[in-house]
Every structure is written in C-alpha cells, then in structure tokens.
C-alpha cells in the first residue's frame, strides 16, 4: 500500500493505492493516527487507486472515523468503486461513511 497526503481547501487528502488488508492495515492506522495527532482533523480518503479491501482495512477506516469524532473532525471517502465498494455494501458501511464520487465533491462535503 502506498500512502500519500496533500492539503486542499483546509482538508487533508489521503491517497492510498494497492491493497488495504490484514498486512497493510496496521501501517494505515499508524499513519492516520500520526495525521490526526498533528491536527489534521478533516480528511478525504481517495480510493481511486485502491484495488482491494478486507475487513482489516474496514476496521482501520472505522478507527479513523472514531478518532476524528473524538477530536471534532470529520472524514469523507472519495471514489469508492468496484470490488472495494462491494465490500462496503456487504458490511453495511455505505450508510455509515460519507462517500462522494470525486475528491472535489468530498472536499465540498467537508467544507
């Protein structure tokens, strides 16, 4: 998994690519904790280049949402498609996370 960040419209856009699974989820959680601890509490996660997610990845995302809620922040997911979207559907998470079809729309949702 590759994890990159950039600031756009006062929010942090996190781009992850590859796989978010039992192997990569701990690293994802670590990087997210560091981001939130350093004051980045409005986060867009761009799934455009994510090919695969498992329940371990979903738990990492839920942890992120929980940490942001504690700090009064928010998260929006962008470009959740295909197989990855199916896993969200199966686990009933499409109603729990804010989701948009693009990063630009996600930034508007968080504004």
């Amino acid at each position, binding site marked *: 998994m590759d994890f990159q960040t950039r600031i756009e419209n006062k929010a942090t856009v996190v781009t992850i690519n590859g796989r978010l*699974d039992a192997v990569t989820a701990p690293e994802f959680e670590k990087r997210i904790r560091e981001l939130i601890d350093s004051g980045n509490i409005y986060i867009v996660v761009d799934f455009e280049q994510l090919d*695969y997610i498992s*329940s*371990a990845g*979903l738990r990492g995302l839920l942890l992120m949402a929980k940490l942001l809620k504690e700090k009064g922040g928010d998260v929006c997911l962008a470009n959740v498609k295909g197989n990855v979207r199916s896993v969200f559907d199966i686990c009933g998470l499409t109603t729990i996370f804010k989701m948009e079809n693009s990063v630009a729309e996600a930034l508007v949702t968080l504004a």
Partner: protein
Amino acid sequence: MLEYPSGGTIYIDGIDILDKKTDPAKIRQKMNMVFQSFNLFSHLSVLENLTLAPIKINGMSKEAAQLKSMELLRLVGLAEKADKFPDELSGGQQQRVAIARCMAMDPKIILFDEPTSALDPTMVSEVLSVIRRLAREGMTMAIVTHEMDFARDVSNRVLYMDEGIIYEEGPPEQIFENPQKEMTRAFIQRIRSYTCRISSPDYDLYAMNAEIEAFCEKQILPKKTRDSLLLLVEELLQIYTPYLPTTVLDLTIAYSEKSERLKVVCESYGEAVNPFDSDNLADDDFGMAIIKSLTESIEYLWINGKNKLQFLFKI
C-alpha cells in the same frame, strides 16, 4: 503368469488362480486379452491374424476358421478389410481387429488394458461401441480405462485403483454418483486442489495469495472469482488467527472441473472447536458478513480428531 501378485487373491469361476494346484495355462485358455497398443502380427493379413490361433492352438480347419473369422470381422464392421495388413488400417480399426482376434478363441473372459488410450480421440468411439455391443451380449470383461462415461454405462462393478490397491469398489451408481472415499471423489469429479499448511500467526499472506492466484490461473478461473477467493481466504485466516499459536491449519482450495464448483476446506487439529461459533468471533461481524456473502454454504464437522469447516464458494 506375467506378473505374480504381491497380495490378494484372484478367483476365476471359483478357482483360486494363485493356488499351487491350479494350472494357470488351463485357466488362461478361458481368457483373452486386448492390449493398449493392439499387438497385431504386422506380417499377417487381418484375416490371418484372426485365424492363426484357432488353427494352431485349437486345431480348427482353415475353412472353418476363416468362416468364423469373417463373421467376427462383420461384427466389428471390418469384413471388407480382411485382406489388408495392419499397417493399412487406422488405430481404431486395428484395435477392432484385435478385439475380433480375441473373440476368435471363444474366451469366457476378455481383459482390456486401456483399449482406447493409444487412439486418436476421433477413433475412440468406434472401439467403445464394439465393447458396448459385447457387454450387451453378455460377455464378461475386465476393462482398465480412464473413459469414465464409458465405464459408467458399460459396467456392473467398478474398482477404483490407486497406489497398488483397490481403493474403492462398488456398483457404478455408487462410484460415480456417491463415492465414499476422498480420492475416488477427487478423481470422479476431476478435482484439482491447492493445500497450504499454516502453523503460525505470522503466516505470509502475500506468498499464499501468489500461490492461490497461480492455482486459479491454471484452472482458468475468471479474475472476479480469483479476487473473491483471495478475500474469502484472508477473512478465514483472520478468524483462525487467534487459534494459530496452538494449532496447525490446513487450508485447501478444491475446484471440480466437472461441476465447476469451488470449495474451501479448513482443517485444524486439537480440541473440538468451531471458530465460527458466535462466542469465538470478533466484536464486529465484518469478516463473517464477507464470508457469508461469498459462500453458498458453511458446514462444520468434527472428524478423526480434526475440526473441519467447509465452504462452498459462490460462482
């Protein structure tokens, strides 16, 4: 005897052929054999191949032997080839001549040693139809074959042999519809499988994924199936992870070419415990939800000191 059996017994009409008092040559007169590679006499015509033994061994007159041989050649559809030499015939025709040559000695039993395995696929059916006809007419035959549909239609007793033993035997309905043993099932259903042993919570998921992908590629499974299978395996391993410090898990992916179904089997040793009991699962049920969505059925069994969980994959 060409080969002396290392074990077991063989009875022909109630006579133990391994008994020292038995005369194998006398028993052999009741039998004849069709070989995998025909074994016709290449310097003799088709008719001469058939008449040789009846004249030399049974003392039949040339005329009577020829008359009978022509009848047999008609039976296998080759009367017009009587004057040809084996080299002038196709493989399927040569094998039909070999069957007719067998019949010329009026055997009570015919042994067939993979009678179609040396043939071009287009010629298999002509030989099988001759054998089917003999079966209908009541000829006793012991046939070694890999032609499963044929074996199922023509036989009234099937012996599945593996590693030098009769592994399973029974009527064709049992062997083909409801085989009792695992290797018979694997053979009949043309099951291809991949097994991985996991003995530590620090298993290498990516190495396993690569092997599963290679297995799927070999079976020409679509990418969507492969991706879903990888997800199923990861979720299963997540559920098994708490048990891995104290148990060994054998994970098998079995694909039946016949039914085009995929099954994942998890076998773990130790005390009887079903990791899928709700008391043993993580607080959230994401893993279970994913597994249920990817499978048609989940079955837990405790057999021979092993926990066995079987998942029938949705395709």
